[in-house]
């Protein structure tokens, strides 16, 4: 795993000392709120509905056991004993005192973590496929490139005051688990016929008020050109992106307003002036960084684990867990385990300190000390021997972390919504809780199959509702919470934005409405193998509208 070099370490420590001083000056009255607010935001400190919130960066969602224990410790010592994993692979603490912030940042620095660039109009934490380095279908491990982009974008002086925030995602597999087409820049690392590495480059995707799917500007950008090309994109955006209207300031609007061809030309021109110079990535440097992400020492094992098969035959709960929560690893005899943070009836993405400690211990013991945070608000143990799965399953179950629902109807993404977020129009978490209670029956969930429900409490779309197979958007209608349903969205390689099905539903009707949609799907699917998304793409909105608004 990547370790800070001395530069990073020195810099983060300086930054903590600087913020300690700023907080002291704010508390003593030397600094006004207007002066202080931008400084606290630069350090990941927001003021939410109930308290200050600290957003901790988890670069490309990768954590060690030691780092996870530190997060648990902070939750226990400074917060209310839990944290919230977000759709950007970060962690948020919800109840932090301003006076404690410097101490917390210092504790984070001890484990090479920080909260820099988790806010503001800069390049945010780079996200990546949460199965990176482990997935059977992976062509190129995206993490070294995510790390190179992290280093390049950290405190990049030219890009610290962009028109608006800027998000990058990287994957290295054909199956897109990082939702690259709804990012400002999405990168798919791949290999050409000669085996050389390059990138498909997507630009101008995003969700929020104006959801857009990114345009592919390059199908195979050579590896060495990665930074020069990204710098060219950012330069064009920084110069031409709108600063007059916050809602039109993202690069997606620039691409939309100017047209893909014009933007592509501008980027290529800029790129031509940068290429072959200081930003070229030398092969030796790529190799140096890639070495940090070398796979852990994994054993040569048979593909099939007799031990696991026997345990599954004796324990239906284990069999169910393996069926849903274990994905194919590139090495025979290993699996990738999704640790669901979506137990029925609980807030999606939350983990208690005890659970974080439990995951850290299990990762150290069974997963080469690696943990991932997924943008679907789950955790991942990427390198688990199939032989160890029964024991790991027991350990997860003891911590309340063995819900076998990965990718099922109860594996819901929900943003914090009006229970925490000062920008919200409606609550998200209670809707997620009620839906997961309604569909709690595991047999029914398995019968329904793959189905992604995503809920946002306002149009900012942190809950990714636009790319939910069923998306739910909370709105405020004359002081009442209302929920709009979209259908057919998808954040994968077949990316699509969901379509609004019709008038919204009040809070006491939304769960019934979701159930009606699901029942309509069960009634019209060709066979159990036809997923919700496939069925929707075949039949369109109409049958669902008929089911939902039959009485209207």
């Amino acid at each position: 795993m990547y370790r800070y070099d001395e530069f990073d370490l020195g810099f983060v420590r300086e930054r903590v000392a600087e913020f300690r001083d700023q907080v002291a000056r704010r508390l003593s009255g030397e600094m006004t709120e207007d002066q202080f607010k931008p400084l606290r935001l630069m350090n990941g400190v927001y003021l939410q509905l109930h308290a200050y919130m600290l957003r901790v960066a988890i670069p490309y969602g990768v954590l060690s056991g030691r780092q996870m224990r530190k997060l648990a410790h902070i939750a226990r010592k400074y917060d209310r004993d839990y944290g919230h994993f977000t759709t950007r692979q970060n962690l948020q603490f919800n109840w932090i005192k301003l006076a404690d912030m410097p101490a917390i940042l210092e504790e984070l620095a001890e484990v090479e973590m920080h909260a820099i660039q988790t806010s503001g109009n800069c390049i945010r934490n780079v996200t990546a496929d949460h199965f990176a380095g482990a997935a059977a279908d992976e062509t190129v491990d995206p993490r070294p490139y995510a790390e190179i982009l992290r280093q390049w974008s950290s405190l990049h002086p030219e890009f610290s005051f962009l028109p608006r925030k800027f998000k990058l995602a990287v994957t290295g597999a054909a199956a897109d688990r990082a939702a690259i087409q709804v990012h400002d820049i999405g990168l798919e690392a791949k290999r050409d016929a000669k085996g050389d590495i390059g990138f498909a480059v997507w630009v101008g995707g995003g969700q929020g008020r104006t959801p857009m799917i990114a345009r592919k500007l390059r199908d195979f950008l050579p590896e060495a050109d990665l930074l020069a090309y990204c710098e060219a994109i950012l330069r064009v955006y920084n110069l031409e992106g709108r600063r007059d209207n916050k809602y039109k300031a993202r690069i997606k609007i620039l691409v939309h307003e100017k047209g893909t061809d014009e933007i592509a030309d501008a980027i290529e021109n800029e790129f031509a002036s940068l290429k072959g110079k200081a930003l070229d990535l030398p092969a030796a440097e790529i190799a140096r960084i890639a070495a940090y992400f070398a796979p852990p020492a994994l054993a040569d094992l048979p593909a099939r684990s007799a031990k696991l098969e026997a345990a599954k035959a004796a324990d239906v709960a284990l069999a169910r867990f393996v069926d849903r929560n274990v994905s194919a690893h590139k090495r025979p005899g290993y699996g990738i385990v999704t640790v669901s943070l979506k137990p029925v009836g609980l807030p999606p993405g939350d983990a208690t300190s005890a659970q974080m400690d439990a995951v850290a211990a299990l990762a150290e013991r069974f997963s080469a000390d690696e943990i991932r945070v997924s943008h679907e608000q789950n955790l991942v143990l990427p390198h688990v021997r199939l032989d160890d799965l029964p024991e790991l399953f027991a350990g997860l179950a003891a911590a309340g972390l063995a819900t076998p629902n990965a990718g099922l109807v109860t594996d819901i993404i929900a943003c914090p919504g009006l229970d925490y977020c000062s920008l919200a129009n409606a609550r998200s978490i209670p809707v997620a809780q009620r839906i997961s209670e309604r569909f709690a029956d595991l047999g029914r969930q398995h019968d329904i199959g793959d189905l992604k429900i995503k809920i946002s409490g306002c149009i900012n779309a942190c809950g990714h509702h636009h790319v939910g197979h069923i998306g739910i958007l909370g709105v405020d209608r004359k002081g009442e919470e209302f929920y709009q349903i979209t259908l057919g969205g998808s954040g994968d390689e077949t990316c699509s934005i969901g379509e609004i099905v019709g008038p919204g539903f009040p809070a006491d009707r939304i769960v019934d409405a979701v159930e009606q949609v699901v029942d309509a799907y069960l009634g019209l699917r060709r066979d159990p193998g036809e997923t919700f998304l496939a069925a929707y793409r075949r039949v369109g909105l109409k049958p669902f509208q008929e089911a939902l608004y039959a009485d209207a």
Partner: protein
Amino acid sequence: MAKAQATGALAVTANDLRSGTVVFRRPDGRWSEEVLEAEIALTAEAAQALLAGARADHDACIVVEPALVEITMTGNRPAPRHLRERIRAQGPTVAYGAAAAN
């Protein structure tokens, strides 16, 4: 920031600078976590006076983001009128942390 209304009950809320906790301004000029203890203004003038006091506390680095909130009275028990402010006053509507997990 909410505008003062000519009619209807209003209170002033803010966040404590140090802790971030949601607070309401009391008749004695101190701040309380309990909306039940909030001073209630029933006229536009009273509301402006209340807000002016809160802004002074903002400038004195005691609170941040002072704002008027509409209040409904049930008997003599005040509660914020809008859901957002009710959630601010009472905390999340969902159990969290260990309380939720148990």
